[in-house]
């Protein structure tokens, strides 16, 4: 047997071997200057952004009304002064949903009387519905709805009168 290291194949293999041995014996110590945003791209990674959090805001009926889900906006809904972000339930509260009436409005009366009719909503420029004429069962059902919404959706604000701010 004879060995010739100068043949191209042998040289190529030899170079590869030397390169790999060099990488094994002297590993790279570089820390990438831009932090990767995927855990697959590197061990020292960071997510791209902070987890999304909603700012707790004070809404009036007028400022709440735009948030009815049209054109991809958020869907907000108020019950007894507490504003819920129900964007996750776009099927129900979005523009073509069953309960689309409630989007962007104060839905307290509707929740109490278990009705989705438009008569349950008070117009925007009038003062908030005082809910004084509700029976105790209706108040109970409204509270039940509030619990349901608190657990399923996010509480993201409170509703005050139009001229309160």
């Amino acid at each position, binding site marked *: *047997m*004879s*060995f*010739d*290291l100068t*043949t*191209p*194949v*042998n040289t190529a*293999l*030899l170079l*590869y*071997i030397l390169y*790999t*041995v060099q*990488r*094994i*014996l*002297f*590993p*790279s*110590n*570089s*820390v*990438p*200057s831009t*932090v990767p945003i995927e*855990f697959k791209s*590197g*061990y*020292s*990674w*960071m*997510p*791209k*952004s*902070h*987890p*999304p*959090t*909603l*700012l*707790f*805001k004070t809404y009036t009926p007028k400022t709440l009304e735009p948030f009815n889900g049209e054109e991809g906006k958020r869907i907000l809904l108020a019950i007894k002064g507490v504003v819920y972000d129900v964007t996750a339930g776009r099927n129900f509260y979005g523009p073509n949903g069953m309960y689309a009436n409630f989007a962007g409005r104060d839905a307290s009366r509707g929740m109490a009387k278990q009705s989705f009719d438009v008569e349950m909503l008070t117009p925007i420029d009038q003062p908030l519905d005082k809910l004084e004429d509700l029976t105790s069962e209706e108040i109970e059902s409204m509270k039940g709805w509030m619990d349901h919404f608190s657990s399923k959706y*996010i*509480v*993201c604000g409170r509703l005050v009168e139009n001229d309160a701010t």
Partner: protein
Amino acid sequence: MGAALSCNLSNQYNLYCILLPLYILSTSAWNKKLFPPPLLLRLPCLSNSSRHMRFVSVKPYPHQNPHKRRTPRTPSFVSSRISCMALSDFLVTDDLTIILALVAAGLFLLHNLYKPQPLVHPILLGRQSDVARVRNPKESAVMRNYGTGMLGRFPVRPAKEQQVLLDLVKPDSDSSRTLWSTKITNPQLRQRVSAFGTGLIRVAGLDPEESNVLLLLNDGIEFLITDLALASHSIPSFTLSSPSVLTPVLEEHPPSAIVVHAEFLPQLLELIHDSNDGVHHTIIVVGNTDLDKHLGAIRLLKWEDIERQGAQADQLTPATPKPQDVFTVSFFATPDGQLRGTSLTHENLTAGVTSTRALLPLSGAISPLDTIVSAHSLSTAFGRAVAYTAVFEGTNFATLKSSQFFTAAETTSFDLADLKSVESYPIPSPTLLFAKPSHLTSLSSAILDEARRSSFFFHTLAWRHKFAGIVDGFLTKQSLWDRLVFDDARAKIMGKGAGTVRGVIVAGAPLEAQALTPARIALSVPLVNSHIHPAVAGPVLASHPLDLQTFPTTPATSGSSAADNFAFAYQAPVGPPSINVEAKLLGVDDVAVEDGADPIGALFVRGPSVGKLLHVEQGEENIPEEDRGWVETGQVVKLTIHANL
């Protein structure tokens, strides 16, 4: 590479041992021309037409005339032969090729596939704290540890039986362990506590729930016994986190009795004399003093006498205190010199013990075989939590010399000599260190200096390999490079601790980001960077113990002050809130945060291990129940995407 080797030890070593000599053999054989010249070379001509081997003689035989030409070939034959020859010229292979190919394949596998597994999966490091979905204006969202979750309940005690402080001394575990210089078992400790408690009531004349006792003791078994006795008899104790608050405390909250060491007694008497108050103090002295029993209105008693007389008398069994009862008030000074006190209940301490136990990974949890060494005095809330964790787990325990405040000597600095001061106690070699950042940096720089001194070339190579392992998330103390370089250095600096230390928890001051990698390489053990506060028993924020992420220095952000930029750029991340603390930041710039910047603000914490500050803000009663209880730590904190800084 050393890390990779140690990962799959036998397989890789075998492979390496086979391939490397093969390679060396082949090259040396070629160099030394071990094979005689007139050899036939078999050249498999890898042309498209035929793949069978043909013998083509390249070197002339000695008897042949080298200048004799061979018969010229016909053109067509020449072209195909030339193409075949051209291709085969390039793809000429021989036995060496096979060997080299094997070696190359082996090295390829070695380099690419035998990468060490990270100690903790990086996906977990991207999700360390659970963040609420809503935040109030000018505040950040409330954050909790991911393990607890926003809907989870905070763990309040290590086990159901540990309701009050004395329950942390488990009565049924019988093994003896050394606390400072005393070898003691749990039942013996309980007996001493009961004896001392009886002595306090009968001899010193203290009233449960009426008197309060100021503990001016340095850390030691007497502190522990006194503390447990006072807690079990529902007598509140006062502790000071530094000697400077002694005078204000004596003025504003005069105690009924003071427990003090003999060497600090003269200073204390001077202070009391200077303050001139008419309260009749009872002073219980630990150690020998040659002063009279009565000094004016002051009654001096000896600690050992009280314990002895208490043991001889009928043991009193006090009513068990409730977990929500305050058993101690810890006084500390804010950075601007104001006196603050925080009242700690039994529940705060049991919750503190729970969160301190959770600092280490489950695979390396604290066990009775450990020896804990703490740099935090028992007079601080965190120091107490660490000490009671040691007592609960049945480990040996000692504190460093720098935690002894109440001495006539000068204060010691937090460095290597301080760490070694623990050798004066008859405890086994330490396994867990609860140290301050300056201890860590001095220890790691000493180890690295020693390693560099002993073998410079190997040290740089070892550093490269270990750092490459860290970049991949893997670190071990048993790698090849440790054996070659670092073990000797560690043994020289730490003595027997080099082999036994298996975890370091750093708390008490910000740790610099630059010190993190040297410390990780020098010690090669799980390192926890945590943030503590005098009002919280247990850590407030603590990093993941197996977290080895290394980030480049964070660039300065616009919109924050220069001091903040400097501070946050150079500090190592402290991680998420501990398992039973929730945290939020106040004073956050809403506009910047909505744009995606990192929130920076004052840290407020709440949880079962957070004590109540003594001075209550006005209007606290107006805050609704779910918003109550937030304690201001007075520290500015920046939230990076998965960890706090």
